C-alpha cells in the first residue's frame, strides 16, 4: 500500500536544522490497522504529514499506491489527498457554517462529483456512521463524538484506500473516544487501511500493529496477532 524508504525530513528553525524524521523506512500493507505512537516532538506529526502528502520528504523515497511522491506539483498532491487519503483530525476541522451533509460533500466537490450524487453519497455515509438524523445540523449543534463521526464520514467521501487519523480521540472523553475507535476498527474490517497517530497507548491498543517513533526514528515495530476485542 505504502512504502517509506530511508525518509528524512529537515526543517530550518532559524539557523539550526531540525531533523524531524531521520531515516525512516516502513511498509504498511493494504488492510492494516497501524498506530504510530510517540511522545510530542518525536516526529510522528511530521510522519503523518508525509504519509498524508501534506508535505514532501527532504530525502528518501515515499511510494503511495505505486505512486512515488517526491517532486510532485502541489495540484497533483492535492488530487492524491483528495482521492487516496481520508483525513481525520484531532480538532475535527469541520467548517462551522456548513451542515454535516455539506461538510461531508466537500471532498467530493473538489473531486467534481455531480451535486445530486454528492448529496446521495454523503447521506449514505452519514447514515452508516449513525448520523442519518443529524445531516442538516451545523457542527456547533453536534456533540464532540458526533462531530468526529461527521469528520470520519467526510474522510470516507471519496472512498479512499487509507484513513489517516491524527489523535482522533484527543478532544473526546473516554466513552465517545471508544465509539470513534470502534468505528475506525469497523472500517478497517471493511477493508480500509487505517493509520492512527497518537501519544496514547490505550488508543494504540486498538491497532494490529504499533510503530513507536522517537527522535525521528522508529524504535519499535510490534504486531499483535489476535484482535483486541
Amino acid at each position, binding site marked *: 500500500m505504502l512504502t517509506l524508504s530511508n525518509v528524512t525530513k529537515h526543517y530550518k528553525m532559524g539557523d539550526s536544522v531540525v531533523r524531524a524524521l531521520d531515516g525512516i523506512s516502513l511498509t504498511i500493507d493494504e488492510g492494516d490497522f497501524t498506530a504510530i505512537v510517540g511522545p510530542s516532538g518525536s516526529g510522528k506529526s511530521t510522519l503523518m504529514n508525509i504519509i498524508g502528502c*501534506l508535505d514532501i520528504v527532504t530525502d528518501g523515497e515515499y511510494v503511495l499506491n505505486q505512486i512515488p511522491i517526491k517532486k510532485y506539483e502541489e495540484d497533483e498532491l492535492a*488530487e492524491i489527498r483528495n482521492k487516496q487519503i481520508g483525513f481525520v*483530525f484531532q480538532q475535527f476541522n469541520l467548517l462551522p*457554517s456548513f451542515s454535516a451533509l455539506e461538510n461531508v460533500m466537500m471532498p467530493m466537490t473538489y473531486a467534481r462529483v455531480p451535486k445530486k450524487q454528492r448529496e446521495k453519497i454523503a447521506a449514505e455515509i452519514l447514515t452508516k456512521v449513525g448520523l442519518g438524523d443529524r445531516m442538516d445540523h451545523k457542527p456547533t449543534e453536534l456533540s464532540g463524538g458526533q462531530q468526529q463521526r461527521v469528520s470520519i464520514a467526510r474522510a470516507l467521501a471519496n472512498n479512499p484506500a487509507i484513513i489517516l487519523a491524527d489523535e482522533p480521540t484527543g478532544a473526546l472523553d473516554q466513552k465517545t473516544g471508544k465509539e470513534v475507535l470502534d468505528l475506525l476498527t469497523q472500517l478497517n474490517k471493511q477493508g480500509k487501511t487505517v493509520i492512527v497517530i497518537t501519544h496514547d497507548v490505550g488508543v494504540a491498543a486498538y491497532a494490529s500493529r504499533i510503530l513507536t517513533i522517537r527522535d525521528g526514528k522508529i524504535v519499535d515495530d510490534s504486531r499483535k496477532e489476535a484482535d483486541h476485542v
Partner: protein
Amino acid sequence: MFKEYFSIAWRSVVAHKIRALLTTLGVVIGVSSVILLLSLGNSAKAEAANQIRAIGSNLIIVRVTDRNGVLPTIWLDELKDSGKLAAYSEIISGNTSYVVNGQNFDVSVSGVNQDYGFVSSLELTSGRFLSQIDLDNNLPVVVIGPKVAEKLFPLTDAVGETMVIQGVQFRVIGILTERGTNFNGDLDATAYIPIDFAGTLFPYRLNSKTYYLASETEDTVATSMRKIESYLTSVLPSANEFNVFSQSQILGVMNTLMGLLTTLLAGIASISLIVGGIGIMNIMLVTVRERTREIGVRKALGAKRSQILIQFLIEAVIITTLGGLIGLGVSYVGAAIIQYLSDFKVTVGLDSVFLSLIFSITIGVVFGIYPANKASQLEPVDALRYE
C-alpha cells in the same frame, strides 16, 4: 463547478453580513457618484442639444460691429435665389420693462422680418406671425411669447389686444408656443415687431447688426458661412469687426465642454472607487487570515491552489458587485431627488447599469486577486496548525 464556488463564497459573505455591507460602502459611494455624474452630464448635453435643435440646426448667426458692415439685401436675395439660403432676417433687439402686480417684468423686444419665424422655427398657439404687408407698411403689430401673454393679458385672449412698447401702441397678432430658457435668456418673455419699428425704438442698436440666416439644408451651412465670411472680409477693414457662427458650432463647443467637465468630475469620483477597492482588499486580507484553518482543511481535503484562489476571488467580486448594485440603486434615487429639486431631467440609462457592473466586477478582481492569491499559496501543513 462555478456554481459551487459561488455558493461557497456567497455563504461566507452572508455569514458576515454587517462586515460585507460596511465593506461595500466604499464601492456604493464610488459607483453611485460616478454614475450620477455621468448621467447628469449626459442629461445636460441632451438638454442643450434639444434646445439648439429647437432653434434649428440650419441657423447661421452673423454679427457685424462695424457701422458700415451691412449684408445688403440684394446680396442676400441673390444667395437665396441661388439656393444656398432658405431665408434670412436681420434682427434688432432691445428690452422693455413692465410692472405687473408690483413686480418688474422684462420683455426682450426684437425687430425682425416676416421670415424670422421660419429661420428660428417659431410656432404659434394662436394668431399669425408678421407678414410681408406688416413689414412693407411698417404696421405697429407684435407677436408675443406665452409668458408675455400670460402676464399682460391674464384674463383675456391676447390676440387683438394692444400693448405699449417704448411709448408706442402695438396690436398683438400672434402668440408663440412655449420654448423655455436657453443661453439667450427666457425665450418665452419675448416680443417680435417689424424691424423698422425696432430701428426707431432702439436707435442705439443700429451700431451693430445681427442677422439670422437659415441655410437650405444642414449640409450647406458650412459653404454658406464661407460665402458670408469672404463677402464681409472684402467690404470690412478687419476680420475683428464681424463674426459668423452656426448653431451646430455652438452645439459642438457645448458638447465638448460638457463632455470634458463630465469626464473630469467622473474621474474625481472614481477616486472613491479606488478607495473602496482598497477597503475590499483590506477586508479580504483579514478574511484570509481569519480563515487560514479553513483554507488548510480545504487543501488537505483536496482543494487545488486555483480552486482556493477562485473561491476568494469570487467572494471579493460578490462583495463589490453587491456594492455596485446598491450604488446603482442609490444613483437612481439620487437622480429622482435631483429631478424633483431642480426639475432638470436626469435619466440613469441602461449603459449606466452595465458600467456600474463592469466597474464593480473589475474592482473586485483587481483588489481581490492579491488576498486570494495569498490564500491559495498557504501551505496546508502550516495552515492546519494555525490557531
